[in-house]
């Protein structure tokens, strides 16, 4: 059942019409990637559904339902919830700083009885929504260059600082980069972008000296020269490169990746799942997966561009930016092109929280598609 700009608004709101307007090709693409993740998790567990593959696939199934559910949510509801979600995210981030649960030397978790919350994941969605809502109300001229832009800058800087303090440098950079991309997509003056980049280049060495913790510095130095410390920090990068390189053109075969099967590859089920994949399926397999990812990104950007509301465009592109940056950072990391930061490969890696975030994000993207003809206003017509 197709919809167009001319379809009557009442017709569009029918559930069956909405379901039909979900981008099912896009959903299929996500399922294929998550399925490949399941296959890899099955392989590296030594040919076992446990402990990773089965929960991963079941969780993904739940997340698909969640995504469809969220796709049904009217864009105006998302719009209305944008600032509250952001605010909740900030509050939880601050709370984590005070009473957070420490893991691997960083306070990232909030223990709420049976539920463990990672506020940095909530803020990823919250920031995208908040920026989208802000830019929705901002004129194109103001979005280019105006004092108003201090507000999105602040919206980005606040969670970034809180997450960096945990410390979780990878996520902080991811949040910052996502925000930056959204500001640019919203029409930020390219001259200002150039100045900003130049400033960044100047600030990075100083930040390295004074802001980073010892292990963060070590990781960066290791990235610059991984061979220097083969048994310490360089070990991760080196083993990952060995896994990739030894995969060759066609790979060692399913279940035969020695680097992962024999545990030479660290964090093989999370951050370095792509290395396991490249080892077992080779250049052909890993490039195919990269193309699938590229398909997801292009489809999501297309959904963003065809939205009639600026909020929809910004929200969908923000989610896409987060997803794409995750992919790029993780890819560059496992290939030895970036320092080891704890950014997993979305959909492929083991890990529930990240998957929920990604799929909630894609729920938003699907909602943007389903409601692409809806007009969103903050005043009249708002339903909340």
């Amino acid at each position, binding site marked *: 059942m197709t919809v167009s700009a001319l379809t009557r608004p009442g017709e569009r709101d029918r559930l069956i019409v909405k379901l039909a307007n979900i981008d099912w090709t896009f959903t299929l693409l996500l399922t294929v990637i998550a399925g490949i993740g399941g296959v890899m998790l099955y392989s590296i567990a030594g040919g076992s559904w446990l402990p990773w593959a089965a929960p991963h696939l079941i969780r993904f199934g739940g997340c698909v339902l969640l995504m469809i559910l969220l796709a049904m949510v009217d864009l105006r509801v998302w719009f209305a919830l944008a600032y509250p979600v952001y605010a909740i995210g900030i509050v939880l981030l601050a709370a984590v700083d005070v009473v957070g649960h420490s893991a691997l030397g960083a306070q990232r978790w909030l223990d709420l009885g049976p539920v463990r919350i990672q506020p940095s994941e909530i803020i990823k969605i919250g920031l995208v929504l908040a920026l989208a809502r802000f830019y929705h109300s901002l004129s194109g001229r103001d979005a280019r260059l105006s004092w108003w832009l201090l507000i999105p800058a602040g919206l980005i800087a606040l969670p970034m600082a809180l997450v960096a303090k945990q410390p979780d440098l990878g996520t902080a950079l991811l949040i910052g980069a996502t925000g930056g991309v959204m500001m640019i997509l919203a029409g930020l003056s390219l001259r200002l972008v150039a100045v900003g980049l130049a400033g960044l280049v100047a600030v990075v060495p100083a930040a390295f000296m004074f802001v980073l913790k010892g292990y963060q510095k070590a990781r960066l130095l290791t990235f610059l020269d991984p061979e220097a410390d083969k048994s310490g920090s360089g070990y991760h990068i080196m083993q990952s490169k*060995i896994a990739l390189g030894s995969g060759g053109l066609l790979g060692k075969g399913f279940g035969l990746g020695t680097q992962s099967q024999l545990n030479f590859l660290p964090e093989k089920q999370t951050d370095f799942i792509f290395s396991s994949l490249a080892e077992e399926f080779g250049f052909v397999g890993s490039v195919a997966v990269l193309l699938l*990812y*590229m398909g997801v990104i292009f489809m999501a950007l297309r959904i963003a561009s065809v939205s009639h509301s600026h909020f929809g*465009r910004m929200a969908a592109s923000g989610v896409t930016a987060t997803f794409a940056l995750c992919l790029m950072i993780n890819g560059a990391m496992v290939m030895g092109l970036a320092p080891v930061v704890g950014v997993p490969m979305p959909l492929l890696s083991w890990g529930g929280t990240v998957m929920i975030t990604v799929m909630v994000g894609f729920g938003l993207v699907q909602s943007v598609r389903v409601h692409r003809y809806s007009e969103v206003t903050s005043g009249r017509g708002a339903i909340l």
Partner: protein
Amino acid sequence: MSNPQIFFNEVNERQGEFGRRAFVFGGLLGLGVVALGGRLAQLQVIENSRYTKLSDNNQFDFRLQPPPRGLIVDRNGVVLASNRPDFRLLFMRDEHMKPKDVEEIVDRLAKLVDLDDAHKRRVIADIKNAPRRAPVAVVEDMSWEEFSRINVRAPELPGVTADMGEVRVYPFGGAFAHVIGYVAKVSGNDVPKVGPIDPILLNPGFRIGKQGVEKSFDPVLRGKAGARKVEVDVKGRVVREDPAGDIASVPGSTIQLTLDADIQNRALEVFGEESGAAVMMDCRTGDILCLMSAPSFDANRFVKGLTGPEYQALAQYDRKPLFNKALTATFPAGSTFKTMVALTALEMGVSPDKTHTCGGAFPFGGHVFHCDKSHGTLNMHQAIVTSCDIFFYQTALEVGPDKIAETARKFGINQTFPEIHIPQNKGTLPDTAWKERVFHERWWPGETPSFGIGQGALAVNPLQLCVMCSRIANGKKQLMPRLVKSIGGKDLPRGDEVPDIPVDPEHLAFVRKAMADVVTSGTAQLTAKLGLGPIMMAGKTGTAQAHTYKGARGTVHMEWAMRDHAWFIAFAPVDEPRYAMSVLVEHGGWGASAAAPRAAEIMKVALLKDPEIRARIVTPLPNPEPVGANPDGPPVEGAAPEAPTPIPGQPQQPTAPPPLPPAQQIEPQ
């Protein structure tokens, strides 16, 4: 920011800008993915072979398989050195293990096996010093219970494995400790400073030959290490074996010595607590049948590793058990050397019938040289038999020191024998050139009489005297001693494949006859009888001054370290010599009383093991039971007589030899 007014132009403007930028963003991401793909191509396609090698290095490990060390057997195949299984506990530190972890694991091990604090500290130091991934032997010689306990617990003890190795064992302990030597842990000196290092040296618990045959033939005995190809996980645990990739080890070769275990064991036995050496050669072939030094030590203790106090006790004992006296103890030859002086005179044309008169004292060059008694007028034969010093003072003066030294050299004095393959001390053979070279002084005529009776600067080792005796006994060949019969089944050249000795065989026969009479009617007539019927032994006694005398001579009544050294050289049977030997009893007193009976005991073993000799013994042995009763029977394993005749100096023997009459006990200097 005002209440947003959504005008189409505004919408179009913002949408257009967003669309353009989203398009560029998508393009940039596309470029990023292309870059990642390019990097993948570089790693996976271009540099694939390099990373494949690194991956294999991770995945596969070659575990060194030390080959079994070659056996050492005697001439009859009796095993003198072999290997026994050894349960060991190995520890291998991987890349991630910190010193703290090592200590914790060793603490946990101490609950499973016997590890005291000192041992624990040593093990921790060993592990820390070892290269990563090189296994270190934590405990050796574990019991089966400990071995299985470790095997069960190994999964919870990272880096720990229990395996079965081999350790050297010497079944005879002491008798062969000097000639075979021993193996012990590799020390810094054993690793070559330059050139490639045999990786087997780094294997935990590997032991290298440190002394004797074990040292001289270490490369042959060691073999070549093989390797077991295994697939390992990141913790170094074996996941899978890959037998196709194994490299076979080459076992060490078996070395067959010419020694005879029965003779050697008996030799150690007859020495009791005395210090000395016994060397026996087959005087037809040159094969060394016995090369024994006493007292000895248990070589197995060295394999395990001596404790400090144990080593101190061995090193400080004044009878020097660590010292191979058969090859390195050098003393004046004493009267055994009179054979050389006699031969020199004969070779120079002096008639054997020429007589000298012994009145008990011989003044020469302002000195008075003594004899132990007044022998009266005697010819050369009688002089050898009674060991008259004054006869040989005069003979030596007649022929001169250089001629005597020349003869002695023909008989192996002052030589080392490479076929023994163990370091020897060649001693001293004085002559005028030697005097000139060492002291820058001419030879004084007053030194010649002492030289004539084998004293003075002359210093020989027991092996040299045995070679001398066997060349006399052989009567033809310039026989060379041989210790190693075969290596890995390949025979080494025999000691009789040599030119003849440039001495008139008639003269050698003359000396043999005199030596035979030493035993029948001379200085050793009561102490060197074999009691084997027609099989007789010939010999010559000797007593070497242990120091310059002040007052009394060094006899059995004196303190041990002051007594003279007793020598006896012998061959048997008299009529067709087969076995020649020399016996040294350090500070034993008289050659006739301390050395000759021991020589007779050792000789009897050799003779009784020889089937042809046994066939000749028609009269029953004085001992009621053993071998003689059944002369045609097969040689009995361990043919030492079951009721050995008493050995002097062993108080536990109930039947001590009868006290010798004073006249017989006297042995010329």
